């Protein structure tokens, strides 16, 4: 009923419902949504961290050289979990912009979203580099489904190297 009233008010272009602002009616629903998204992000991070700790204890019996390689893999698996959680959090932040009361707080929220995006970009770049390293050393990349993409990247890289060497020789 309340949602129907809110939709009607939006359709009529009015800013209030029975004397209350539209924000008043929307706030709890946006609140529930952002709450759910935050909890989902929290669960993803908790599972990723627990899996990372479990894997860390599992590799302790290996030799230090193997441990070094496996720790990098564990770290980047955790980074993939963080990346997914960050995407959820950015979605939650975008929803929260509906509720911000002033330009000052909106600008702070924008900075937070910016930090999250930079972190996501850094993480995804790191994972790609690590996957390329794994492919170069003949190992299975962390993201199995992206193997074709990384193979293409490798092909392009080889092609560029060949072209540059050809240019140098000519």
């Amino acid at each position, binding site marked *: 009923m309340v949602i129907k009233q809110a939709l009607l008010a939006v359709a009529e272009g009015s800013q209030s419902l029975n004397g209350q602002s539209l924000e*008043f009616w929307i*706030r*709890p629903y*946006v*609140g*529930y949504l*952002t*709450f759910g998204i*935050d*909890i989902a*992000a*929290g669960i993803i*991070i*908790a599972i*990723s*961290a*627990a899996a*990372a*700790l479990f894997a*860390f*204890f599992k590799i*302790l019996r290996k030799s*230090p*050289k193997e*441990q*070094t390689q496996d*720790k*990098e893999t*564990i*770290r980047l698996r*955790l*980074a993939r*979990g*963080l990346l997914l*959680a*960050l995407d959820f*959090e950015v979605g*939650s*932040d975008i929803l*929260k*912009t509906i*509720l*911000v*009361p002033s330009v000052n*707080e909106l600008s*702070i*929220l924008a900075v*937070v979203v910016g*930090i*999250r995006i*930079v*972190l996501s970009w*850094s993480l995804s770049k*790191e994972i790609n*580099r690590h996957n390329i390293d794994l492919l170069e050393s003949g190992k299975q990349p962390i993201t199995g489904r992206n193997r074709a993409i990384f193979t293409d990247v490798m092909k392009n890289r080889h092609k560029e190297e060949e072209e540059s060497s050809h240019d140098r020789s000519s």
Partner: protein
Amino acid sequence: MVKDNLGMFPILSSVFSDAQNIISIIASVIDIFAIVVIAVTIFTSILPLIKSTVALFLPFIIQSSSDRQTAQENCALRRRVLKANLIKGLLLALELESANAILKMGIFTSGLVGISPISSTSTFSINNFIFFVGIFSLRIALNQTIRRSK
């Protein structure tokens, strides 16, 4: 006004309070994970590192001459591997701290827009913000440095 609105929805207020408690607990558990990773990494790396350093600088401690020579030959290589292992372990702990910072940032933004029942002055402080920016900058800078040093 924000608090008044939440006051109209007592269930929502209590739900948010519970959610923030859950996220705070998860953040504390991740902190403990990071501490465990640091402790185990240091324990498993420092002792062999000290042992190899002793073999390198105090060769008379090792009785057999063949053992002494082998130890000295392998020492530099082992030290490098152990150092790499130590750094990777610390980076894993830093990744866990990043996870923690991402969680805390969620609470921070909830406080900022006023949907959190906790007063926004307690959650929104410049110290929290500096903490997030510091952790992420450190993380990115360390990764870039390690990548270039390879």
